[in-house]
């Protein structure tokens, strides 16, 4: 597969794209087959949200989730993963809740480096284009977020470099 690919054309019209649109911003898009009113409901009713936010295929379980979905309201999700003894908490506040078009929340588990997530819902011909913007406070904060999710990959890459250097040394 093309390593630069950021979307899944195989999924047909339900295509999810992720793009780093700037040094400190990630944008996720997807079109959902349904009116904005219903899609927004699935994002803002905690009993519905908890059914889709944590995909089973990622081995993560949602231990608890509470949310007071209104401007100024708080949310808190606790997740568990087999590779970690300690569950992880994700929490923040809703900065804006405007049915059925816009949601903004903070991600405060990362301290000052946490992103602000803005989700917009645009309805067109019965389908809703969902755009998720994650804006980090700095380039370093986003770089760090990306690196922390894959720290285990670094060792492997250094090993590959070592192997490559060995080969080149032998040849030289």
């Amino acid at each position, binding site marked *: 597969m*093309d*390593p*630069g*690919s*950021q*979307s*899944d054309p195989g*999924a047909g019209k*339900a295509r*999810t*794209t*992720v*793009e*780093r649109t700037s040094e400190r911003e*990630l944008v*996720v898009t*997807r079109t*959902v*087959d*349904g009116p904005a*009113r*219903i*899609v927004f*409901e*699935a994002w803002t009713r905690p009993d*519905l949200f908890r*059914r*889709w*936010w944590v*995909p089973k*295929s*990622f081995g993560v379980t949602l231990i608890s989730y509470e949310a007071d979905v209104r401007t100024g309201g708080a949310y808190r999700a606790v997740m568990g993963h087999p590779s970690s003894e300690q569950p992880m908490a994700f929490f923040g506040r809703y900065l804006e809740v405007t*049915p*059925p078009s816009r949601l903004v929340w903070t991600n405060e588990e990362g301290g000052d480096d946490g992103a602000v997530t803005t989700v917009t819902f645009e309805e067109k011909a019965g389908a809703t284009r*969902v755009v*998720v913007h994650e804006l980090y406070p700095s380039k370093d904060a986003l770089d760090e977020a*990306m*690196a922390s*999710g*894959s720290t285990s*990959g*670094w060792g492997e*890459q*250094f090993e590959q*470099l070592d192997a*490559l*250097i060995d080969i*080149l*040394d032998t040849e*030289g």
Partner: protein
Amino acid sequence: MVQFLPTRLDASFAALSDATRRGVLEQLGNGDASITELADKFHMTLTGMKKHVGVLEQAGLVTTQKVGRVRTCKLGLSRLAEETAWIDEYRRLWASRFDALDQIVEELKQRETVDGPRQSE
């Protein structure tokens, strides 16, 4: 980004074809170092070391940052590849979420067909 990758790979191999530059990478594997420190270590002039570091930087193998008058070098191996892999994994996460969301939206739509539209607040 896609078109950019092969160029970056060629640059990586070109950068690794030089013994001094491979030495610099090994050195940086033990810890960050300034250009001056690297020049001393490899008994080179500052200008010579700057050129080598420039080639490594072009290849994405090293990143440098200037703080005051000191330029510090660190390993920046496959930063691009790392980021691409991360974004791809992140896309997979969101695709899974949205697939599950699709099912719920479908349920809600069917409920409305039965009960009539629900009043939004």
